């Protein structure tokens, strides 16, 4: 299993150069069964990453480009009257795929946003009194531009909370970008091959709870969230849902590292991705250089008995 995930990481690394850590986090999120929010400027490879993720796991993939006039029906699907059967039949929308890339999620109207987020939470879609199950595994990758760009509806805190992780890709380093530019043009769209089957992914997800979290590690997580609640540095404190997300992601990270127990480093590795978007306030412009989660990490001793 370890080797398969390593393979997946190296496969995707061929497409997105110099971003192993972010790729690993994205995989962690997928294994943990949560949804992923990628936040970055245009042209950083958000779409490429999600496409690659879907391909590597051999999952069905669809992409919804969010615009301000996108309606919920465009995404969920519609009931159309079938004149032969004299009945309505449901035509599923692009959401009914295993990996859904919701591109530029903050450009859509709040109504559409909340329809998507509801589907993410419930794993099902209700339309005209009928409930339609979404496929499994169901993995939404939302991307969003930094909010100070024009024409955006920032996601409220309550909806940001639905995303297990939020990562930023950031600019590639000198060497990676040089390599990218030197690649021949046709290699840029090199086809990836599936490494892990969807069934294997589901199995991984089911074994997640077997990763042992000792009391020491749970205490560490509790110290972290308590600190965020008691300190005055953080606009928003970490909720119990956040602490659950933290444990879940850390487990997934440990599993990818092929370890059957958690150590503080697992928590520390996933904390920035899990906590940053929950800690900061959506109201204020957030300068990216001061990372709240980093601040939180540096205040809490993982060993304190």
């Amino acid at each position, binding site marked *: 299993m370890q080797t398969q995930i390593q393979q997946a990481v190296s496969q995707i690394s061929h497409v997105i150069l110099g971003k192993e850590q972010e790729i690993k986090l994205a995989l962690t999120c997928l294994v943990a069964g949560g949804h992923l929010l990628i936040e970055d400027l245009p042209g950083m490879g958000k779409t490429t990453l999600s496409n690659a993720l879907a391909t590597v796991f051999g999952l069905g993939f669809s992409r919804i480009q969010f615009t301000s006039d996108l309606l919920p029906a465009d995404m969920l699907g519609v009931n159309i009257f079938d004149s032969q059967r004299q009945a309505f039949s449901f035509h599923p929308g692009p959401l009914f795929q295993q990996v859904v890339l919701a591109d530029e999620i903050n450009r859509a109207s709040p109504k559409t946003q909340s329809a998507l987020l509801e589907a993410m939470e419930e794993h099902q879609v209700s339309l005209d009194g009928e409930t339609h199950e979404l496929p499994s595994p169901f993995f939404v990758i939302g991307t969003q531009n930094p909010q100070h760009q024009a024409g955006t509806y920032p996601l409220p805190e309550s909806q940001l909370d639905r995303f297990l992780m939020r990562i930023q890709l950031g600019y590639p380093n000198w060497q990676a970008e040089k390599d990218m530019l030197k690649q021949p043009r046709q290699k840029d769209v090199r086809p990836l091959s599936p490494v892990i089957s969807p069934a294997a992914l589901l199995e991984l997800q089911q074994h997640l709870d077997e990763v*042992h979290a*000792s009391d020491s590690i749970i205490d560490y997580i509790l110290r972290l969230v308590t600190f965020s609640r008691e300190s005055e540095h953080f606009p928003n404190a970490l909720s119990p849902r956040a602490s659950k997300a933290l444990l879940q992601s850390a487990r997934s990270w440990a599993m990818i590292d092929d370890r059957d127990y958690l*150590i503080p*480093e697992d928590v520390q590795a996933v904390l920035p991705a899990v906590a940053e978007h929950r800690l900061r306030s959506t109201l204020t412009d957030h300068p990216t250089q001061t990372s709240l989660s980093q601040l939180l990490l*540096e205040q809490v001793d*993982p060993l304190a008995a």
Partner: protein
Amino acid sequence: MNRLNPSAYNHAHLLLTLVLCASSFTLFTPLQTWILILVGCAGIIRISLFLNWQKHQISVRTINLLAILSAIVLATFGWQLGLLLGMLNLLALACSLKLMLLANRRDYFQLIGIQFFLIGTGLVFNQSILFSLLYGMLTLMLLLSLAFHISPSTSWRAQTMRIAKMSLQALPLCLMLFLIIPKLGPMWQMPVGKGSETGLSDKVTPGDLAQLARSSELAFRVSFEQQVPAMNQRYWRALVLEEFDGKTWQTAPYRDTLRRRYQRTNNRFNPAVSGPRIDYQVLSEPSQKPWLFGLDVAISHDSKIWQGREYQLLSRFPLQSGIAYKVSSYTQSPLLPDIEVLDRRLNLQLPESGNPRTRQWVKALREQHKTEGELIKAVSEYFIQQDFRYTLNPNPMPVDPVDQFLFEEQAGFCAHYAGAMTYALRLAGIPARMVTGYLGGEMRGDAYMSIYQYDAHAWVEWLSEDGWKRLDPTALVSPLRLDFGLQQAVAYEDSFLADSPLRRLQQFAWVNEFRMLLDDMDYLWSKWILGFNRDNQEDVLKALLGELSTLRLTIAGLALVAITAILLALYHYKHWLVLAKKTPAYYYARSLKLLDDNGITRPHWMGPEDFSKQVQQSMSTDISHIFEHITGCYLQSCYARGGNTKTQGLNQRMRTLLNQLKQGLKKKKSSVRDAQRIDNIS
């Protein structure tokens, strides 16, 4: 902006509010009324927030406006209050505003801190046993509030038990500090509170003393060591008034100047004394005045006490709190004038005009009686022969008071008699002065004597060839006053404590009993708690240790420390045992300490594996390898499944690894040292 209500059903906030209101209202003399009203408002706001009648806090803007207004008012009216009262008012004002604003933890803790301070300040102004109990209770309430702040959902009962337990634990420490910490005098000069003055004043218009005599407040207490002098001999001298302007008697300004000069040069007055001696201790109540009390000729060797040149005793500072001092009185010793010329000059001073009838009368008397003794006798006779009355309700005599008193009213209080007599003697060319103080005192069993404000008295002193002689014209008019006290002396007009509710209650025996009991308690409180000074401290230590020597004190101190340490050890030993138990975490901490000593410190937020990697980068492979193993064991025991079941084996391994690490580091150190030495040699 309206903010949500943080106080709804918040017991911590409620208790804080109650304590703030209570402690402010006990300070109602030093605090200004409008500030008390603000405090009251803040209390009402907080309580209605607590009951959730009101759902929203007052907006910050309103409070800011209120704060600016109050600051202006305080700045306008508060500047004449003096530093301490001004600060106290400012503090109470700030407290009330903060209480209205109280929203987050920081506000709360600030208020708690200030509350403790305010309670301390309260003890500066009120020191009686009841107030002390009240302040003690307020302190407990504050602690309770803190307890509720920390664990809001615990029940009242459990919280109270917890606080009671903790306070009991603090009690021995408190007692020890009380007995051992040296008593320091106040480090600041206290401003005099307005309106709170009772007791003798350095200016006496004869009607004043009659006013004072309506008060049943305690003036001071005395405990005698030997026999108690007779009632009519207990003239407690407080002030000598030598300056007369026709209406008012006051201390001579020149005497004050002189005294200050002596005090600066620390030139103490040591009157020659002889004859039998009475020793006693005086416990004075706070009076905001510096003068003290003693029977003539009173000598005190206490360093706090200044021996006045007119045979009175003075404190170096106005009495903010009660003071206890020892006095020896030489009752038969003459009161020789310090500088006779000065005494003569000061005590023959007269206003230039006024009281013409008295002037004429004395002139006539002087022509008849040439010697001093005869003249005094003649004046005394006038008092006896005429129908003079001793009364607590003299009529006001605004114009030429001596004339009016001697020839028209013929009824007055002791100050009237003393004033008229002194004036008459001075007119006749005999140096005389008025002395005020107290006469008598009520004995309580054999233990102590209480002297109340209604024992206030004034008498005359004239300068004879062998010193100052006491002359009490009141005795001529009302011998009862001397032998049985004021109550008997004015029994005929039924004016004793006429306004006091106590008087009506005095008819019931049990009320008297109860009052006596309270008196006794108050006496013990003043003597042992308030009056506990360095002398008492030494007495207690002597009683405990025998003769005081450095060695004994050292041993006693060390023994105390040792006992405390042993008690602490007994209390905590279980906890320590757990710590000392060798767990993998313990070995890991040891290895971290070792590395720390060698210059590699784990940033406190770093996880063990990351730190192991950091060690790999900065240490040689053999050491980092050992540490990697230690880290591995630690991770195994702390984080892996079932880690704490196999600690036995892990402990064994970690001990070996730790020793290896120790040796490795030592070797590295010595090799570095060798390298340095080689460098030095070369």
